[in-house]
């Protein structure tokens, strides 16, 4: 979707908060939000449904909320959507019929759980790849998927395939719980192709792009 999240190349955001934004967490509640998210409190979602949920936030909130504030809001939505909590429970702040408490994990168990979360997003290749390393490709100008990973700034642009990764789960479908694979490539674009002749001719931007985002150039 052409949403507020698609920030690449947008202007007017001012300086990067290099010093004041050096720490990963500024408040205790941000760390707790991170822990809640890592533990997988909405087990029926997919990673791309999570990302799509963020994209569907009220646009003004998306731009003014901090990262973990967005996450908290998105998880409330995701859990109501999944039927895990009701809007009434959310507005009341507690549940009427508590479940059995969850088992507590140790730090060592968490560290091991992170190690085991090394997820492979590749899928068996069912069709031959249309492109190869060295090919010149053009990205689509329009894409009308609810969720997509082709940013607006890189549409209708010509680049060079610099890597082929086999088939990976296609996020545009994964956002809707459909697990299908598509060939994935790393495509390099010159900064001048993306931003015009004033850009340094040596500079490049690379993106990972799925096959259906691309046509031969």
């Amino acid at each position, binding site marked *: 979707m052409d949403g507020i999240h698609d920030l690449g190349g947008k202007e007017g955001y001012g300086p990067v908060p290099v010093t004041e934004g050096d720490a990963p967490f500024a408040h205790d509640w941000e760390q707790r939000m991170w*822990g809640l998210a890592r533990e997988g409190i909405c087990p029926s979602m997919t990673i791309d449904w999570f990302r799509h949920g963020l994209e*569907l936030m009220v646009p003004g909130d998306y*731009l003014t909320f901090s990262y973990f504030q967005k996450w908290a809001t998105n998880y409330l*939505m995701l859990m109501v959507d*999944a039927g895990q909590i009701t809007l009434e429970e959310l507005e009341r702040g507690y549940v009427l019929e508590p479940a059995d408490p969850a088992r507590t994990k140790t730090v060592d168990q968490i560290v091991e759980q992170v190690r085991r979360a*090394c997820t492979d997003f590749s899928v068996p290749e069912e069709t031959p790849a249309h492109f190869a390393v060295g090919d010149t490709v053009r990205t689509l100008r329009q894409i009308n998927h609810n969720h997509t990973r082709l940013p607006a700034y890189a549409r209708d642009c010509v680049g060079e395939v610099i890597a082929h*990764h086999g088939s990976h789960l296609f996020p545009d479908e994964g956002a809707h719980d459909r697990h299908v694979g598509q060939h994935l490539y790393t495509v390099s674009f010159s900064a001048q192709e993306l931003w015009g002749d004033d850009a340094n001719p040596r500079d490049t931007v690379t993106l990972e792009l799925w096959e259906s985002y691309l046509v031969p150039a």
Partner: protein
Amino acid sequence: MSTFDSKHAAHLHRHIHSHVPSDPALRVKALESLAVEKGLISSETIDAWVEAYSEHIGPMRGAKVVARAWVDPGFKTRLLADATEAIKEFGFEGNATGHLKAVENTDAQHNMVVCTLCSCYPFSILGMSPAWYKSAAYRARAVREPRTVLAEFGVNLPEEVAVRVWDSTAELRYLVVPQRPAGTDDWDEDRLSGIVTRNSMIGTDRVLKAGGA
């Protein structure tokens, strides 16, 4: 079960926007209370996650990997060929590093990593990302004016050094391997890992300092 229905999700977001206090601390508190009461997590487990990411999982892991690449050419070859496999030698594989690629800075090229669409980051090897990495300013500007952004980090790159910005649009994650600074020839791996900064592994720091480490 999630509905995976975009219109329904947007409707719920508008409802939450209008009916739930926006104070983030309150929203997280509500989320934690509801998740605990539903038996999805215990508050002590959240404490354990906080400790895991402050004490065990962080940029010190990436620094160890970079230091080994500097002293062990065989490891460096394996790291650049398949970083996901190479970091298993440390047990650092895991969340968001199932498809990890290491990219090496040279005299002629500087690498810099961003995620313009969300804030993808290689958590199991660099820990939680700094707030600036998740800021709208960095996400918007890193791809368009990387040299200006680098200057804000104190990195003034000569015109003749190419910048390659890696926008993490898929499940590939990137680890920048900075250049080993001069004057560290007799340093061991442990001492070297002490001078590898987190920002240098994201690509917003370039010339590491041998002094004072």
